[in-house]
């Protein structure tokens, strides 16, 4: 690790209802990035910056791209603190819920249809994530 010292011996916080709510709030902000990404992608077009034309998104699309960065930026700030204060297994188990949240946003905001195999697949993926991260430290 070079000149850096690793903080292996630090105490980790216990999981409380409040901490779960706070971590899930961070996860929901993270899933907001997918919503913004989809919204950005639905505004193709051209923007002009300093005379140069960029053919991809219009300014509304760029706004949603910016909002995606905002979501990820906020999430990054929270996530760095979460993985400092909690075991990674707890952090990743909570983050695994992101696929359920995004599912909800897909249905609520974009009218996407949920099929049985979608749900079965997501539950299996979720269990897989829990298993992979069960002994993370």
């Amino acid at each position, binding site marked *: *690790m070079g000149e*850096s*010292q*690793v*903080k*292996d011996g630090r105490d980790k916080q216990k999981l409380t209802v409040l901490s779960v709510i706070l971590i899930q709030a961070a996860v929901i902000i993270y*899933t907001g*990035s*997918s*919503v913004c*990404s*989809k919204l*950005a*992608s*639905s505004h*193709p077009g051209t923007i002009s910056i300093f005379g140069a034309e960029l053919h991809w*998104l219009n300014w509304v699309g760029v706004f949603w*791209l910016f909002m*995606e*960065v905002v979501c*990820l930026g906020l999430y*990054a*700030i929270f996530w*760095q603190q979460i*993985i*400092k204060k909690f075991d990674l297994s707890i952090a990743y188990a909570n983050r695994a819920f*992101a*696929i359920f949240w*995004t*599912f909800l*946003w*897909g*249905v609520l*905001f*974009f009218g*996407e249809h*949920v*099929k*049985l*195999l*979608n749900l*079965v*697949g*997501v*539950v*299996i*993926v*979720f*269990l*897989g*994530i*829990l*298993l*992979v*991260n*069960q*002994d993370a430290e």
Partner: protein
Amino acid sequence: MLNKVNPWILLFAVSATIASFAQMLLKQSATEEHASVLKEYLNWKVIVGYALMFAGMLLGVIGYGKGVEVKQGPVMETIGNVWVVLLSRAFFGEPITKKKVWGNVLIILGIIIFNLA
């Protein structure tokens, strides 16, 4: 069935792969002592880590623009868990346990079943 799957969902798997490399940098930074709270965020590992995530983010926008549904993106991105297990072994010498192997098998199985819908 799988032959109806939008091939652009693979962009999300690529995005997750890039993000997994980014996670390695972020984890290294998170486990190191820093002189100040500001330097916890403003150091090259965090900056490069999030730059990689930004690149992955742009891939996501392209994918969604090609008709990938919101519900599909994050599910495909869970392939990142497989990468994290492999890269954690390579970067930090973390053991690949049976739980990790079976967990990854479940993730891949779940992704396939999800896309059968």
